[in-house]
């Protein structure tokens, strides 16, 4: 049977295979709005911390928790309802990219907040979270593009 398959037909089949796998990978891509939403929620939480008021904490913490659950639930639920990505598509490079991104956001935001506080700047948590939120909004899509490229490279039949 393979003798009856022309090279052009085989090449077309390989293209179709790559595109189908890409469809699943694209489905798992976290949308841009998610990163900005998480960045904004970080700022909301930090405002509550900076105001040093039980009422402010009581208002901002639930907003942060509910917002995170809603946004993350939407993203995870979408993948769960359609297709869960094969674990093998992610590799050590993907894990390293995620860890570096997390370290920049968490370490950078906390470090900046303590630095601003030490310098006597007012509302250090809020200011640091605004910076962290901006990095999240801009960097999140960059991280997703990197992860997508890694996953596309790990597809069955992808050129290595």
């Amino acid at each position, binding site marked *: *049977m*393979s003798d009856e*398959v022309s*090279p052009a037909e*085989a*090449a077309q*089949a*390989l293209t*179709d*295979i790559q595109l*189908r*796998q*890409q*469809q*699943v*990978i694209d489905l798992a891509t976290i949308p841009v709005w998610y990163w900005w939403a998480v960045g904004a929620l970080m700022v909301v939480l930090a405002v509550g911390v900076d105001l040093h008021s039980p009422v402010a904490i009581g208002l901002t913490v639930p907003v942060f928790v509910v917002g995170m659950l809603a946004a993350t639930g939407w993203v995870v639920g979408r993948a769960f*309802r*359609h*297709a*869960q*990505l*094969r*674990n093998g*598509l992610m590799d050590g490079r993907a894990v390293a990219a995620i860890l570096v991104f997390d370290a920049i956001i968490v370490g950078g935001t906390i470090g900046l907040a303590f630095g601003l506080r030490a310098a006597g700047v007012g509302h250090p948590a809020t200011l640091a979270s605004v910076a962290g939120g901006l990095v999240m909004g801009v960097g999140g899509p960059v991280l997703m593009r990197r992860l997508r490229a890694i996953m596309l490279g790990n*597809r*069955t*039949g992808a050129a290595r």
Partner: protein
Amino acid sequence: MTVPRFDELIHSPTRLAIVSLLAASEWADFSYIRDTVELSDSALSKQLTTLEQAGYAEIRKGFIGKRPRTSARLTVQGRAAFEQHVAALQQIVVRSGATILPSG
């Protein structure tokens, strides 16, 4: 190193599309496969049953609340067959390239 092996069962265009989707997934929802490959419920059921009978796919039926949910995934055997089939297709393309190239 994957040994190339052309698989007639997988090479059918519809099944190739289904298996390709499943190859990138741990589990894929029945309705997602149906909508993506543009098949009717019965046509997809038939194709999945064929893959299941060949030992290439596993079908899981369950409920989320009161709503029935059917998912499918490739078995280890199915994934291996798919990888061998892809290798066979690549071999066909590469060989054609070799013959097209001027010798010497």
